[in-house]
C-alpha cells in the first residue's frame, strides 16, 4: 500500500543507541532494503560498525544518506565528515563502516541491495515486527510475535537471540538462557554481543548464562 510517514515518527527505541525507523517493513517494500536511524543526542553510534560479510552479512551495497543533523562516518579507517545532505555509498561489502552522530536529531537513511540479484529481506530484519514492542517494554507481546516469526524460520539465530533478549527482560530466565544457547551454537558471533548486551543484565549472574554464552551443552532450560 502506498503511504507516508515522518522518519522521526517511525523511529522507535528498541535497544540502547539510536532509534530505528523500520522503513521497509512499515511500507512493505520488497524491491530493496531501506531503514533509517535517529540519534536524539550527539555521540550516539548511529550506524554500528559492521561489514556486509560473514554470517549476518548480506553482500549488499549500502547507500547512507544523512537526512538531518551531522555525523562522522568511518569507512575502512577513513574519517568522513557528513553534514545533512551527504551521501556515503559503500560498494565493497568487506569495507568496515560505522558512523557517530555529532548533533542531536541526526537521521541517517540507509538503502541496500545486492547487485545482479533480486532483493530478499535480510535475516536480521526478520525480528523487526517483534522488536517494535521493545519500545513500549511490552515484552510478552514481543515474545508472542517472535514465536509466530519462528514458525517460518525456526533456526534463525538472530530471531533466537532477540527472543532470548525479550525473555530475559520479561523475567523468563530459563527460556532466555535456552534460546540464547541455541543462538550462540548456530552463530558464535552472538557470544560477543550477548556479553555486552544490557538486555541480559537480569540473567547475567546465572551460571546457566555463562554456559549459554560459552556454547556449552545442556543449559537445563525448556529450549525450543
Amino acid at each position: 500500500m502506498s503511504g507516508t510517514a515522518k522518519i522521526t515518527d517511525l523511529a522507535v527505541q528498541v535497544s540502547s543507541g539510536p532509534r530505528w525507523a523500520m522503513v521497509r517493513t512499515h511500507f512493505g517494500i520488497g524491491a530493496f532494503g531501506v531503514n533509517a536511524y535517529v540519534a536524539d543526542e550527539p555521540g550516539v553510534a548511529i550506524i554500528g560498525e559492521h561489514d556486509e560479510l560473514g554470517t549476518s552479512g548480506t553482500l549488499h551495497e549500502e547507500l547512507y544518506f544523512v537526512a538531518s543533523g551531522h555525523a562522522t562516518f568511518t569507512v575502512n579507517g577513513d574519517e568522513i565528515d557528513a553534514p545533512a545532505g551527504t551521501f556515503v555509498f559503500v560498494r565493497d561489502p568487506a569495507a568496515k563502516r560505522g558512523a557517530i552522530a555529532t548533533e542531536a536529531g541526526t537521521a541517517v537513511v540507509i538503502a541496500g541491495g545486492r547487485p545482479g540479484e533480486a532483493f530478499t529481506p535480510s535475516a536480521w530484519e526478520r525480528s523487526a515486527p517483534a522488536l517494535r514492542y521493545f519500545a513500549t517494554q511490552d515484552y510478552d507481546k514481543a515474545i508472542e510475535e517472535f514465536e509466530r516469526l519462528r514458525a517460518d524460520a525456526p533456526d534463525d539465530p538472530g530471531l533466537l537471540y532477540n527472543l532470548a533478549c525479550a525473555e530475559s527482560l520479561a523475567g523468563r530466565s530459563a527460556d532466555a538462557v535456552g534460546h540464547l544457547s541455541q543462538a550462540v551454537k548456530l552463530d558464535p558471533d552472538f557470544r560477543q554481543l550477548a556479553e555486552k548486551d544490557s538486555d541480559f543484565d537480569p540473567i547475567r549472574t546465572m551460571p546457566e548464562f555463562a554456559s549459554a554464552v560459552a556454547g556449552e551443552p545442556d543449559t537445563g532450560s525448556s529450549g525450543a
Partner: protein
Amino acid sequence: MTEKAYEVAHLDELDHFPVDEEGLVWRPVRRRLGIRAFGTNAYTAEKEGDRVVEEHFERDGHEELYLVAKGRATFTLGEEEIDASAGTLVYATPGTKRGAVAVEPETTIVAFGAKPGVPHEISGWEGIFVALGYLKKGEEEKGRQAMAVAIAERPNDWQGQYNAACFESLTGNKEAAMAHLQRAIELDPKAREFAQKDTDFDWLRDDPEFPA
C-alpha cells in the same frame, strides 16, 4: 582498475539537469556514485510552485520511496494530497499515480526505486535525461555526445534513437532527425505513434520524407 570501496558526495555537489518546463531539475545520484543494486536520484525545485516529482505511474513495475531531504513539498499520491516537510517519506506502489510540487524554494527530494523480484536493471532514461538536460542548458554538443553514449549503452532500445531524433529536430538538423526516427521505428513501430503527436517534430511533420 580497482574500484574504490566507497564514494562520498553532498547534495550540493550533484549535477543539475533540467527535465521539463515546470522547473523539475534532475540530480543524478546513482550515476554519480556507481550504485548498481537499486535506483537513486534527487530532484530539486528552484522556486516555490516548481515541480519536484514528475506526475507519473511506474509502468515498469518499480516501487518508489521518496524522501523530502530539504524544504517542503505537496505530494499527490493517488487521490490524496500530502503536505510533506523535510524528513517525510512517501512510498508509492507502481500503480499509484504520484507527483509533487515544491512549497519552498530549493526543495529537494531523494528517490529510491527498484522492481521487486528481479535483479535491478539500470534505467535507460538516465542517459537520455543527461543528453536532453545538456540541450536545455544550451550545451548542444555535450548533449549530442551524451545521446550517442546513451544509444551505445542500449543499442536495441527504440527510446534512445527516438530521443536522438527529438534532439536533432529541436536543433534544426532535419536529416539526422529523420534518420534517428526511422531507426527508432524499425526497432519498435510504436515510435511512429509517438512521433505523430510529438510537438518536437512539428516543423518536420509535413515533409514528405517524415517517416511517421
